[in-house]
């Protein structure tokens, strides 16, 4: 039998290890999250920020390279594989989304209708569009929807058979893509608005809503409206 002091020592070491493991689990693991990218102020218009994103059929990086996912561009022009971006309150957010994925019919056609953006229409490769019929043409690849801000934007798909189709991200502008541009208002209060894609695009998951649809950084994210 060990002496009392030795036993006490073991107890202290045990508790120290337990606390260390708990702290590591919390801060090293559970608190981890994709980075939040701050929007860049627009030089031309006042009270406007620019957010540039691209969405790829397969992100190609990280633990799930085959998953679809968004990338957000920072002020230096570098794309980060994340879905969280920060915009100031009471601001017009000018979004540019480069869409590299192929599309298809929507499960619920209601997401083909543009809602909550200024002018009631988005610019798709320069053409104003307010409704996409997803069973025609290339269909809808993804959507950008912020339910609490009432923003719904369908992203028209690219032709999956295009020669320069981007199979694995990050993609660049020389590959087949659609450019979707629109502006929405960030509202009068600070808030974390969730946004998501309403196209069941989690391939290989039942009803397509698993995997990338259920993880931040792929098809689910936050618009962080800050001061």
């Amino acid at each position: 039998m060990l002496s009392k002091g030795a036993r006490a020592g073991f107890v202290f070491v045990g508790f120290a290890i337990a606390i260390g493991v708990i702290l590591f689990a919390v801060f090293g693991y559970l608190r981890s999250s994709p980075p939040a990218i701050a929007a860049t102020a627009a030089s031309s218009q006042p009270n406007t920020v620019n957010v540039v994103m691209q969405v790829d059929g397969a992100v190609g990086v990280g633990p799930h390279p085959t998953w679809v996912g968004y990338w957000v561009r920072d002020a230096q022009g570098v794309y980060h594989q994340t879905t969280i971006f920060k915009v100031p309150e009471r601001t017009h957010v000018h979004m540019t989304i480069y869409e590299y994925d192929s599309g298809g019919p929507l499960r619920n056609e209601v997401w083909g209708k543009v809602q909550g953006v200024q002018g009631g229409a988005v610019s798709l490769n320069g053409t104003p569009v307010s409704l996409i019929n997803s069973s025609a043409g290339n269909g809808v690849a993804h959507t950008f929807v912020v339910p609490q801000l009432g923003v719904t934007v369908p992203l028209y798909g690219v032709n999956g058979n295009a020669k320069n189709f981007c199979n694995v991200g990050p993609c660049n502008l020389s590959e087949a893509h659609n450019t979707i541009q629109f502006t929405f208002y960030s509202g009068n209060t600070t808030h974390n608005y969730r946004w998501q894609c309403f196209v069941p695009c989690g391939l290989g998951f039942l009803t397509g809503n698993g995997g990338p649809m259920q993880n931040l950084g792929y098809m689910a994210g936050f618009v962080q409206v800050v001061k």
Partner: protein
Amino acid sequence: MAIKSDEVGSPAAEARKHGGRIFALWFVASVIVDLVVWFVWGPHMAPGFMTTTAAGQVFDFKVLTVLSAPVLLMVWIYGGYSLIMFRDKGTHEDGYYVKGNRKIQATWYTLTGILVIGLAAFGTYELIAPAGAGVGEGPSPIWKPNNAGHTLIVQVIAQQWRFTYRWPQFGGMETTSINLPVNTEIQFDVTSLDVIHDFWAYQLGVKADANPEVNNVAYTKTLQTGRFVVRCDELCGIWHGAMYNYGHVVSQSSFYSWAHSMEAQNASLTKLLPKFSTSYLPKDNVVGGQYFNSSQA
């Protein structure tokens, strides 16, 4: 070991002495608490009186509380009294040797039995009389509202992670917002396009699971105007906590003007929608997931 005989009277006398005090305390407390519940809290009880079913929930909750408060108080007062009076006062002796009492046991069984069966009967009546009490009744409801007047049908389509609403009486249009007319019988047809959700319109007193490929019908009747919140009440994945939206019960005229303008606005979208149906097949192999490797017809 046993209690000294000079310390206490006969078991019956002891029972009368302590029991009388406990009963008096309990009776006074119960009356006060019940009056407070019924008259002070009752008129302000959630979820309010916006619909018949919400008002029904308030009434049922109130009745249950009035019945259960005395039970709670009975255990508390009896327990508190006994623990104080029958504590070991340092004498370290044993308690009164008794292993049961046929009369008390029989009374207890009878009273709990009557109470429980009465509650079940009350609950059954309150379920059937108001047409299912705002609860989802599945595809073929057995308890329907008995007035033959106009019923507004609202289809609630749940999908990960948003409710949308379809209005068969307005050209089958689909909206992301919901408004309802006051003083109107409403029929909710709740269904889902993927996993199980639950349509919970809190102030409307309506709750129905949204099951994929199955219709779930719930009825209510609006009584007051106001704002209500719709929340998903069945865990449905990452955005379950954010799956909510607000709606309004408005006057009939403003409802119809809203509905007709939405119908006009959405005309081009409505043409793209599938034919109105009580449920929709997610068609897993056609769009989206491509989960099943062997594609069946």
